[in-house]
């Protein structure tokens, strides 16, 4: 009895839906791109502002310096003149310290003394030199220019305007991004839905297929190219199923037929015998005749069971090294008498190879082949088992000389109950399961069986050389 142990495994979680996956990836990608873009945009605008500011402050500082250096102007006129300078520069302020750090000149409005604590005087104002600070609820940005004779000119401007603009820009940007992401996600979702539509259609098509409608096939050209392969595999599966079903129902029909004939024989014969008084001898004859029929039935049933078990993998192979020449010799010994009756010689050709096989099964397979070969051999011919090593297989051929088997029958010989000659008496040669068993045994071992039958010119007309070829893994 086979005991299957089931290991308790936590059922794996269902993978994320395809739609969710696509949406997640798209959302992530769009967000990353948009964030990158927004940051770049902001930085570039800020840099642009800084450059502009630096240029403006430089100009103001120089104007202040020029004004101070202008010998035509007295100290009183400086203020007025600088006021003029600043008119073009909105909210710009300056503070000039002389060599003794005393305020020499300053614009009204803002006190720039904190700037001297934040930074050093420099000969040229660049965007990188700008420092910003907050003072009395205003934000300023400025730098200090080194003038001649130890004077220092601090210039600064209010940034409120820039900041306001940047703030607005940031909001607009993020809102736009959010809207774009939403739009893209919507589009992606729609795309996925559209994309999965053929799958849904496929699924509803597949639902139409049932045991009675196995001839239905899906059309690979009607689906997007990505699904064509799936459809082909599916069709292949249905094809296999259909063949399996066909074989199964053929098999059932065969069984019914094969069993019905002998059963009805049994019944009729018994009924006829019982219809009037008969002698003891006649009753005995009936029982014997019934017994023979019943034994045949029992053997057929057990052979069919054996085949069914093999096809369901219920036979466990007991592999062992088997010497092909020894096993053939043993079979020759067994079949010796019937071969002798027909004047058929049994031969083994080839090296004494050893293969790994279930000995009883191999014996059974070769026995069925030999028994067939002898049965159909012409008198005074040879039946040969030829053994030949192939690359990773061993080939065993059971060859005889006998009536030709038409090519159309060759591949079907190994089907259950198949008879090349339908008129042949059903009882004359077993149940018609022998070759099916050989095939099962070969396949169980990972091997194959095939047959060939060619007219042989060296023989009498109409005689063929028929080979049954077993290929067995080594």
């Amino acid at each position: 009895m086979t005991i299957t142990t089931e290991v308790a495994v936590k059922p794996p979680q269902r993978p994320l839906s395809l739609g969710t996956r696509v949406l997640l990836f798209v959302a992530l990608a769009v967000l990353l791109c948009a964030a990158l873009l927004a940051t770049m945009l902001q930085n570039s605008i800020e840099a642009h502002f800084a450059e502009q500011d630096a240029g403006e402050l430089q100009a103001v500082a120089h104007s202040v310096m020029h004004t101070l250096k202008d010998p035509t102007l007295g100290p009183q006129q400086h203020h007025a003149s600088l006021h003029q300078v600043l008119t073009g520069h909105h909210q710009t302020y300056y503070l000039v310290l002389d060599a003794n750090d005393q305020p020499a000149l300053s614009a009204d409005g803002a006190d720039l003394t904190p700037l001297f604590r934040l930074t050093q005087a420099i000969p040229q104002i660049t965007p990188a030199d700008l420092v910003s600070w907050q003072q009395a609820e205003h934000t300023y940005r400025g730098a200090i220019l080194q003038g001649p004779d130890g004077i220092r000119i601090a210039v600064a401007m209010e940034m409120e305007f820039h900041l306001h603009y940047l703030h607005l820009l940031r909001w607009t940007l993020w809102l736009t991004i959010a809207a774009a992401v939403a739009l893209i996600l919507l589009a992606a979702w729609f795309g996925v839905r559209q994309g999965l539509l053929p799958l849904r259609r496929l699924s509803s098509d597949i639902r139409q297929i049932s045991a009675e409608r196995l001839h239905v096939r899906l059309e690979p050209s009607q689906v997007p190219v990505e699904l064509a392969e799936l459809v082909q595999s599916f069709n292949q599966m249905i094809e296999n199923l259909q063949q399996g079903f066909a074989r199964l129902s053929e098999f059932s029909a065969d069984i019914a037929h094969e069993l019905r004939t002998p059963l009805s024989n049994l019944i009729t014969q018994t009924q006829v015998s019982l219809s009037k008084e008969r002698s003891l001898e006649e009753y005995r004859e009936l029982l014997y005749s019934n017994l023979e029929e019943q034994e045949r039935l029992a053997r057929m049933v057990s052979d069919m069971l054996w085949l069914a078990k093999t096809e369901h993998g219920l036979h466990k192979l007991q592999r062992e090294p088997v010497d092909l020449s020894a096993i053939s010799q043993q079979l020759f010994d067994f079949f010796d008498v019937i071969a002798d009756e027909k004047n058929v010689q049994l031969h083994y050709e080839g090296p004494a190879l050893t293969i790994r096989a279930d000995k009883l099964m191999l014996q059974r397979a070769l026995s069925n082949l030999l028994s067939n070969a002898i049965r159909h051999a012409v008198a005074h011919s040879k039946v040969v088992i030829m053994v030949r090593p192939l690359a990773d297989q061993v080939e065993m051929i059971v060859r005889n000389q006998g009536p030709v088997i038409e090519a159309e029958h060759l591949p079907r010989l190994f089907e259950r109950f198949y008879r090349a000659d339908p008129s042949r008496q059903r009882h004359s040669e077993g149940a018609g399961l022998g070759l099916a068993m050989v095939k099962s045994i070969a396949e169980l071992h990972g091997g194959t069986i095939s047959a060939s039958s060619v007219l042989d010119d060296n023989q009498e007309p109409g005689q063929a050389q028929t080979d049954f070829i077993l290929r067995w893994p080594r």
Partner: protein
Amino acid sequence: MRLLIVEDEVKTGDYLKQGFIEAGFNPTLCRNGLDGHHLAMTEDFELIILDVMLPDVDGLRIVKALRQAGRHTPVLLLSALDTVDDRVRGLELGADDYLVKPFAFNELLARARTLLRRGQLAPQSDRLQAADLVLEVAKRRASRAGKKLNLTPKEFALLELLLRRSGEVLPRTLIASQVWDMNFDSDTNVIDVAVRRLRSKVDDDHALKLIHTVRGMGYKLEVPDDDNH
């Protein structure tokens, strides 16, 4: 010969009992596992025929209990299951033979006799005789009415089997397995041809026929009743 049959199926049980009585045994039929278990453990039988699938107690458990209690009565299992595993399990637990249903009664009878003979451990005699047929096993010599028979090795082995078990109907499968070591049911007529050939050598020139066909069952070697045994 005391025999215990444990079989729950009514028809099978009845025909087994009748068959064994007619074959000269003294069978006790038991229709459930519990009684079967009890009888097997308390009374002495020479052979127990045990159905594996009983409704109450598993036949395999009875074998196990029997062997654990140190009782060595030969056990022949009957089962509808035929997988290598079942067979192996039954034999591992201490059963002596295993027969799959449906079986031919004469097959069961032949196997039962084999088991009983095994228990007797009688030395196999070298000289076998039935009427005027004599077989000297070691010398590989066979003669009928003093005249030497020319037998092939397989014919000799076949005749030896028939003689050693003379009076018994030997089914074809048993002959195939004992003489040719072919342990599967083959649909060939090899056995029939072989027996026919042997018979022509043994019986053809003699009025007293020794080898008999039992239709639908097999072959036996028997000296007709009025003769000595």
